[in-house]
């Protein structure tokens, strides 16, 4: 169903969708890029952020408090998870890391199902961003427009923290040679814990920011996890700018393909990932050798 108004609408929607995907993927890429752990519980942590925010919203009625609660709760969960389980897996094979994080994810999902049931939960957008905005060429939900701005700010903050601060420098040095950093008197594993917490917080933040766009169910993270991996693989595993680029590309592929045949939207997404893996195995902005 091709016509120009629809094409422009879909290109714009691809951008907004891509921004959301970039935000969700950022936590995954932070943890993998710095610690080398592929966190399959990422989708579940994204979901936890949504539910923690939902619970806070129920009690306070404030979206801002919901966002803070969702982010902090998942950060605490992430830190505990790292201290109790993940730190034992840094030196173990990737398969073990995948299995343990996959298992943790299932536990999180089922715990939430136990507490909140499988029913959909609604978190309304803040009053300022409710309704629809006319952009001339299309009507677009105001909150989705706001999300683009929120994502830009959040990603900017994360970038600064990880790449322009002393903490970020230590983290990157720790990845290169943890023994050397250790011998300089810096506790590398404490830094790793902080990074895991930040990555988890990014997932939780994305979860609650995304909550007014989708309705929450315990499976909300499962559905998004696959897309997140595609984004990270396209952009380059462990590359922060790669997650943003990958997110935008994925958003555009889904939106533009759906103009012609929505049934092929996800097929094209996976086809694009395959193509990237063939041409640039480390992703568009990935660096060879980073593990």
């Amino acid at each position, binding site marked *: *169903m091709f*016509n120009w*108004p*629809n094409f422009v*609408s*879909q290109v714009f*929607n*691809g951008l*907004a*969708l891509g921004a959301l995907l970039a935000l969700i993927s950022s936590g995954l890429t932070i943890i993998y890029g710095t610690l080398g752990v592929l966190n399959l519980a990422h989708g579940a942590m994204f979901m936890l952020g949504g539910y923690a925010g939902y619970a806070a919203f129920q009690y306070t009625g404030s979206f801002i408090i919901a966002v803070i609660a969702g982010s902090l709760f998942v950060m605490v969960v992430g830190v505990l998870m790292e201290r109790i389980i993940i730190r034992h897996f840094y030196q173990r094979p990737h398969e073990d890391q995948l299995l343990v994080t996959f298992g943790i994810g299932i536990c999180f*999902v089922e715990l939430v*199902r136990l507490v909140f*049931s*499988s*029913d*959909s939960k*609604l978190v309304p957008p803040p009053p300022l961003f409710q309704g*629809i905005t006319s952009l001339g060429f*299309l*009507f*677009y*939900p105001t*909150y*989705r427009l706001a999300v683009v701005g929120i994502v830009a700010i959040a990603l900017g903050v994360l970038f600064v923290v990880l790449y322009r601060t002393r903490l970020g420098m230590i983290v990157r040095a720790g990845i290169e040679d943890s023994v050397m950093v250790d011998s300089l008197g810096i506790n590398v594993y404490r830094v790793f814990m902080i990074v895991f917490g930040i990555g988890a917080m990014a997932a939780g933040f994305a979860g609650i920011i995304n909550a007014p*766009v*989708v*309705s929450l*169910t*315990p*499976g*909300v993270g*499962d*559905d*998004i996890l696959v*897309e997140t991996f595609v984004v990270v693989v396209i952009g380059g595993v462990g590359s922060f700018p790669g997650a943003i680029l990958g997110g935008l590309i994925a958003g555009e592929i*889904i*939106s533009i393909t*759906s*103009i012609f*045949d*929505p*049934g092929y*939207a*996800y097929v094209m997404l996976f086809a694009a990932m395959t193509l990237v893996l063939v041409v640039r195995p480390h992703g568009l902005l990935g660096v060879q050798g980073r593990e």
Partner: protein
Amino acid sequence: MPAYAEDHPAIGTYPAGSSGPSVFIGISVPRTGTYAVQGEDELKGYELAVEHINSGHELIKKISPKTKKGVLGKEVKYGVADSAAKPNEAVQAQQRFISENKAIVITGGTSSAVAVALNKLAQREKVLFVCGISGSNDTTGKDCVRYGFRQNFYGQTAAAAISPVLIKTFGKNKKAAYLTPDYTYGHTVTKSMQDQLAEAGWTTVTNQVSPLGAPDFSSYLLNVANSGADVLINVNWGHDAVLSIQQAKQFGVLDKMKLVVPYQVPFLARETGGLMQGVYAATDYWWSIEDKYPLAKMFNEAFEKKYNYKPEWGAANAYISFAHWARMVEEAGTFYPPDVIKTYEKEEVIPSLVGDVHYRKEDHQCVRPVIIVKGKEQKDMKGKEDYYDIVEIVPGAGLMQKPDAFGCNLGDYT
């Protein structure tokens, strides 16, 4: 009269599954994933039916007069597995119930992909499959089997029942946009709706096909918003329906066009928070028909007493499917599957929660009415679960296709 193993040759799990003091039923419903809410409701219907069968409840006796306690005097036991609405998981679980527990009947649904897969398993293993929720024409159409039976309504009957109401309400020559989940259920329901509405000059301006469990519907909804449609016919089910309707509201689509849900989703009205108000839907069962059907009233009361809410149609379908199966076994006087199947195929008119029904011998589809509902406005609701007005209860016989129209070939008894 009790059944003896030597009466019949061994087939499937017969006689091993029914030679002890109890018989086993394998139940697979989605407890996770897109259809989890509906699966849990369905499971409650099965559990209540088993409880009623084992205790010889008054309601079961009205449907199956020969039932005393249990089925042919044997206690019914059951196992439950999570299918996640995925055919491979359902088949694995049921295969286990058949091999390890000698299940004499298997059941489960809320996805036609699962129903079709279990149809094939049932026919291969020669174990009866009493289908849970399944809306595809294929389940008792091209993928029908001798060992499978379906009680609930489906694409063809839903479309035939709701189309005249839509034409009367919205007029002729309308433009329709469809949201269709990309599997047998979605494709057949959409096709049936298109065929029925085409007779009144309705055209399809866009058909947005999406995968089961799509995380976002924005790109589909933009296509719908730009299509110039008068009516949005949403065939999505479970959480896909909830999400797509909520996002349709966010994108202003519901302000531009009328929403129709041709295959009603249990709990949709509650989960979408008022967005079903004024919306037409076709369904298998809605609790307020109890004014007209005494058995529905008995069922509602028993269900609400146990679970503290009004049953939706997933639970009703589960309950009555089991009750009918119990009746057929009692009438046959044996668990020997070919005899039970032949009892279904007698086309005897039997009681159900929606009046008298029968199973068609050519395709094992229950001939039963379809209920058209319309979402009530908030101010008209008399209680928190009073979501719908009953618009019409359309008798089933006139809604059905010819038995061979969808390519059904039942296969062998043995």
